[in-house]
């Protein structure tokens, strides 16, 4: 017994003596930076002259996407030391470390026998000296921009741990013509402003387009039939239809997260209430019942709650209710009038428009109303829409006496950028990632 005790004491003493030899300096790092990560995107390799142009274009779109996110900085190609000559040979990481590239993107464009093109790409972690991912894509030559966006999404996902948002489209209201006879048509384009197309003609005014978060369906309001009506537009089939036969005006439609139903506002005799409508059975259900105006509903991403706008408290404010209409409670208490609430696809924030002191602002708050932050403010900023990863908000801005234009801002509020459009543009709606 005593021997065992002695042995135990010896072990404890030995362990105590051994500790300093293995001691580690313990350091806490609590402050860091949020600078854009330097990334080197090499012009994609190619055999033929035509493929070389595609290679340069793909790399250019990737660089522009990464730069626009403000999370990355594309290192100028003139700074590159190594000239990548074959995709199969690993890069000389030391050459990329010298120019401070954290990640390296290389790729190759190859024309295929059947007329399509194949694009290969590799993403390397320069300091870990290892490949992070690699993909091969094949498509028609005129679809190269989508591949560039897909590659951008892969890079974004690997380097930030979040889903990307580059392979997406924006539907919006294109505005043209004199102020007294404004023509408002539905238009769609890539998220970077490329490939714009009209979806509707110039005979009827359209408003508030919204993308389904899970399908290639759009809902919007149109005066095509005389009175304002909510329409559905299927991008795959190019067909559109009036949604339901309501006795009054319908407006402010928005899809449920699974795309199976729509929540909208129905106005009868001057009283606006919020309804849901199942897209299969077309059955509808009223969610609010109040003498005040209840409008602009938007689902939480889990489908369990709805944020909406109501002036039941005297001025337009934001309210949240359960998806069945129960538990209605006010969440906005700041100065000014709150409108157009949109729940983030991440679920953690609600974006809104706030009108205060003669100016309009785009802001975010938590679903319980706390943590309100204004991201951008001007003469008129309105109609926020979220990128599918919940990091960027697009909206429209109108100056005094100027036409409306689309802008985007990230959650820091620092990365404010105008989106190029060929006409004046308002009411943007961001698509989910393309299938």
């Amino acid at each position, binding site marked *: 017994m005593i021997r065992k005790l002695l042995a135990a004491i010896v072990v404890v003493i030995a362990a105590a003596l051994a500790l300093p030899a293995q001691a580690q300096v313990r350091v806490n790092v609590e*402050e*860091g930076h*949020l*600078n854009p990560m330097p990334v080197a995107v090499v012009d994609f390799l190619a055999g033929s002259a035509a493929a070389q142009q595609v290679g340069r274009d793909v790399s250019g779109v990737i660089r522009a996407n990464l730069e626009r996110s403000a999370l990355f900085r594309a290192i100028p190609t003139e700074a590159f030391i190594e000239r990548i000559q074959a995709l199969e040979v690993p890069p000389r990481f030391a050459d990329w470390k010298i120019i401070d590239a954290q990640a390296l993107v290389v790729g190759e464009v190859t024309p295929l026998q059947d007329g399509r093109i194949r694009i*290969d790409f590799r993403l390397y972690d320069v*300091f870990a000296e290892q490949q992070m991912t690699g993909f091969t894509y094949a498509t028609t030559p005129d679809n190269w921009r989508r591949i560039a966006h897909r590659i951008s999404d892969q890079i974004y996902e690997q380097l930030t741990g979040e889903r990307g948002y580059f392979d997406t489209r924006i539907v919006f209201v294109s505005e043209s013509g004199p102020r007294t006879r404004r023509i408002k048509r539905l238009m769609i384009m890539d998220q970077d402003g490329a490939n714009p197309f009209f979806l509707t003609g*110039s005979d009827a005014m359209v408003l508030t387009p919204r993308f389904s978060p899970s399908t290639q369906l759009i809902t919007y309001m149109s005066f095509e039939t005389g009175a304002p009506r909510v329409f559905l537009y299927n991008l795959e089939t190019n067909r559109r239809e009036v949604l339901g036969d309501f006795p009054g005006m319908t407006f402010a439609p928005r899809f449920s997260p699974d795309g199976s139903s729509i929540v909208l506002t129905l106005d009868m005799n001057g009283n606006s209430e919020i309804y849901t409508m199942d897209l299969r059975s077309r059955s509808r259900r009223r969610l609010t019942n109040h003498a005040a105006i209840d409008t602009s509903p938007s689902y939480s991403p889990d489908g369990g709650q709805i944020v909406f706008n109501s002036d039941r408290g005297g001025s337009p404010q934001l309210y949240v209710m359960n998806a069945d209409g129960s538990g209605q409670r006010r969440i906005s208490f700041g100065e000014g009038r709150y409108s157009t609430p949109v729940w983030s696809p991440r679920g953690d924030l609600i974006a809104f428009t706030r009108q205060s002191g003669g100016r309009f602002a785009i802001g975010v708050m938590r679903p319980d109303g706390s943590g309100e932050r204004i991201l951008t403010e001007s003469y008129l900023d309105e109609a926020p829409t979220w990128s599918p990863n919940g990091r960027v908000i697009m909206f429209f801005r109108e100056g005094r006496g100027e036409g409306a234009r689309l802008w985007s801002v990230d959650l820091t509020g620092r990365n404010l950028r105008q989106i190029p459009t060929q006409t004046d543009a308002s009411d943007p709606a961001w698509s989910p990632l393309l299938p």
Partner: protein
Amino acid sequence: MRAGVLVSIIGHVGAVMMTMLAWEARSSLPEHTLAVVPIEIVDVAAEANIRALAEDVPDEEVAPQEEQAPQEEEPQPAPAPTPTPQQQRRRQNEEFNLAEISGMINRERDSGRRQQEGQRADRTQRGAGLGTEERASIEARIATLVRQELQHCWRTVADMRDPERLRVTVAFRLNRDGSLNGQPRVLSPANYTFDPDMNEAVNRAMRAVRTCDPYDRLPDDPVVGDHFEVWRDQEVTFGLRIQ
């Protein structure tokens, strides 16, 4: 007066016509069907990871080891995969000048470092017999130096969801010249594979440790430079200050 009215009318008519022309041009964008053009996608990450594949193959042409500090104290990281002899020769020819210049610079820097290390080795091994107070003050200075370096290399998690939760502790070992010895390893959290936010926090911590390599300020510091035994092993926790 009449001339002014005339000029005004001409001006207005001109402006209206210009607007109509521009409007017409804007309206002439094509209407298209918008079905998404499919893309065939193949994940080639595993097949294309030449480096990982190469690590499975025994290297026949391993470059002779350079002079190093004692192996027991500083085990070397696994040798980098060697390209095939043909590739190697081709690349050697292509990059002859750059490689030569870079080698010269490295040799010069290495010889300088070795000289410094030799001088240090000649001195008394002060770290071995440190008093508690002296050790504490040296550790505090080392922690400050390492923190100052890593603050510039760590991309904070402040922009992520629920950032206070994302605390990551990594351990790493340094060589006498301040360079990283082997790869950093994660001490905590223990399991983060299925937690995308924590996964990203770990990536940011690991990237910070690698990006800051070499930790030159430690061997060059007049106070702690000689106490390699104290700063050889580091344990760093990355995370926002808990209020």
